[in-house]
C-alpha cells in the first residue's frame, strides 16, 4: 500500500494554501483529518480500475438529446449541397466511420459478455465469435446484434432480392427508424431519407468485415408504418465471386 506518500503529498498541498502557519502548528491532526475524509475507498474495496469496462452496455442515452444531435447533423450536411443525392451521400459518409468502429465494439462486447463469468480464468475454452465469411451470417449480424446494439431491438425484416438480375441485392427493413422519429421531410424533398446515416453505418460494418457493398436507404411507407425504411445492400462483384467459391468449398 502506498498510503504514507499520498498523505504527505496531500499535506504539502494543503500547507501551500491560505493559512499555512496555523496548519504547520498542528500537523498530526491534519493527517488524521485527510485520512478520514479525503481518501475514499468504496466499501466493497473495488476502485474504478477493478470495474468492468463493459459496464455501460445497458446504459442508454437520452432519446431527445440524440434527436437534437442528429437534427444538427442533418442541418450540417445540408450546407452547400447540390441535391438530395448529395445530401444522402454526406449523411452516408457520416455513418460510415461509425460502422467500421462499431464492428470492433460489437465483437468486443460479444466476447466479454459471453465470458464475463469466467473473466479471471483463461478464456481458451470459450470460442470467440467468428468473423462472418459468407453473406448470410453477415446480414444476420447486422439484422440482429448490430441493430440491438444501436436501437435495442432487432430489425424488422431481412429479404433477398427476388429478381434474378440482381442476386447481389439484399434488403433490411426497419418499420420505424429511430433516426427518423422526429424528422418530417418537406414535400419537395420527399425522396430524401435521413436514415442514409444508418445506411452508412451498415456500409461501414460490411466493409469492415471485408464485404464491399453499397447501402442506400429508401422510403417505403405503409399505412401502419409511415416511416418504414428499406436499406438496400448491394454487394460488389468480388464479394459475389468469393461467395460462389466459398459455397462450393462448403464453408458456412
Amino acid at each position, binding site marked *: 500500500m502506498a498510503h504514507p506518500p499520498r498523505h504527505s503529498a496531500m499535506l504539502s498541498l494543503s500547507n501551500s494554501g491560505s493559512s499555512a502557519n496555523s496548519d504547520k502548528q498542528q500537523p498530526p491532526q491534519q493527517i488524521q483529518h485527510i485520512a478520514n475524509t479525503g481518501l475514499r475507498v468504496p466499501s466493497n474495496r473495488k476502485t474504478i480500475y477493478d470495474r468492468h469496462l463493459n459496464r455501460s452496455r445497458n446504459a442508454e442515452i437520452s432519446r*431527445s438529446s440524440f434527436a*437534437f444531435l442528429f437534427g444538427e*447533423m442533418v442541418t450540417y450536411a445540408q450546407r452547400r449541397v447540390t441535391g438530395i443525392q448529395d445530401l444522402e451521400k454526406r449523411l452516408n459518409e457520416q455513418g460510415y466511420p461509425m460502422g467500421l468502429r462499431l464492428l470492433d465494439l460489437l465483437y468486443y462486447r460479444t466476447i466479454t459478455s459471453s465470458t464475463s463469468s469466467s473473466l479471471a480464468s483463461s478464456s481458451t475454452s470459450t470460442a470467440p465469435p467468428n468473423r462472418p465469411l459468407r453473406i448470410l451470417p453477415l446480414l444476420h449480424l447486422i439484422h440482429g446484434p448490430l441493430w440491438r446494439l444501436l436501437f435495442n431491438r432487432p430489425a424488422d425484416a431481412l429479404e433477398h432480392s427476388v429478381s434474378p438480375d440482381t442476386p447481389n441485392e439484399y434488403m433490411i427493413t426497419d418499420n420505424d427508424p429511430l433516426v427518423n422519429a422526429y*424528422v*418530417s421531410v418537406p414535400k419537395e*424533398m420527399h425522396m430524401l431519407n435521413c436514415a442514409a446515416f444508418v445506411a452508412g453505418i451498415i456500409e461501414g460494418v460490411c466493409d469492415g468485415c471485408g464485404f464491399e457493398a453499397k447501402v442506400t436507404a429508401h422510403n417505403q411507407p405503409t399505412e401502419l408504418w409511415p416511416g418504414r425504411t428499406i436499406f438496400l445492400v448491394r454487394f460488389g462483384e468480388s464479394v459475389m465471386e468469393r461467395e460462389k467459391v466459398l459455397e462450393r468449398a462448403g464453408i458456412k
Partner: protein
Amino acid sequence: MTVFSLIIINKAGGLVYQREFQPGLRKLSTNDYLVLAGTFHGVHAITRSITPKLPLSTASTAATTPTSSNMPPTPGIPNSFTPGSAFTFPNPGTPATGLECLETDKFRLTCFQTLTGTKFLLFTDPIMGNIDVVMKKVYELYADYVMKNPFYQLEMPVRCEAFDRHLGGWLRGRT
C-alpha cells in the same frame, strides 16, 4: 370533449400553424386568421403589461420566504431588502401570463404562452374541462415533432407531417 381547432402564434405575432380538428366553428379566410393571430398577440401583450404588480411588504421580505428567495433578481428591484421600492407579480417567480381564456356560449379560447413567447390557442367546447392536459400534450408534441425536426426553420410556418399525424392521432384517441 370537443377540440375545434388549434392556432400557434410565434413570438413576433405571426400565425405559424392553424388546423381544424372538428367542425363547429365558422371558417375564416387565411387572411382573417393572420389578422386574428396578430390582434390576439397585441391584446395579449397589453393584458400582460396592465397586470398590476403587488408591493412587497417589508415583513415578508425580511422573513425571506422560499418563494421570494427563489425569485430571479429583476432590474427594477436592485435589492429585495430595500423596502418601499419592491414589487412582485401576483404569482411570485412567474411573470404575468396575460390573457388566458376567452369565452362565448359556443366556444372557449384558451391561450398558453411558452417561456420563449410562442402562443398556443385552443378553441374548445365551453363545457369541456381538463384543457390544460390537452394543452400540455400539444406543447409536448410541438417540442418533439417541430423543434426536433431539422427541416423546420424557427418562427416560420409549421409544415411537419409527423406533427400533424401525431396531433390528429392523439386527439382522435381521446374522443
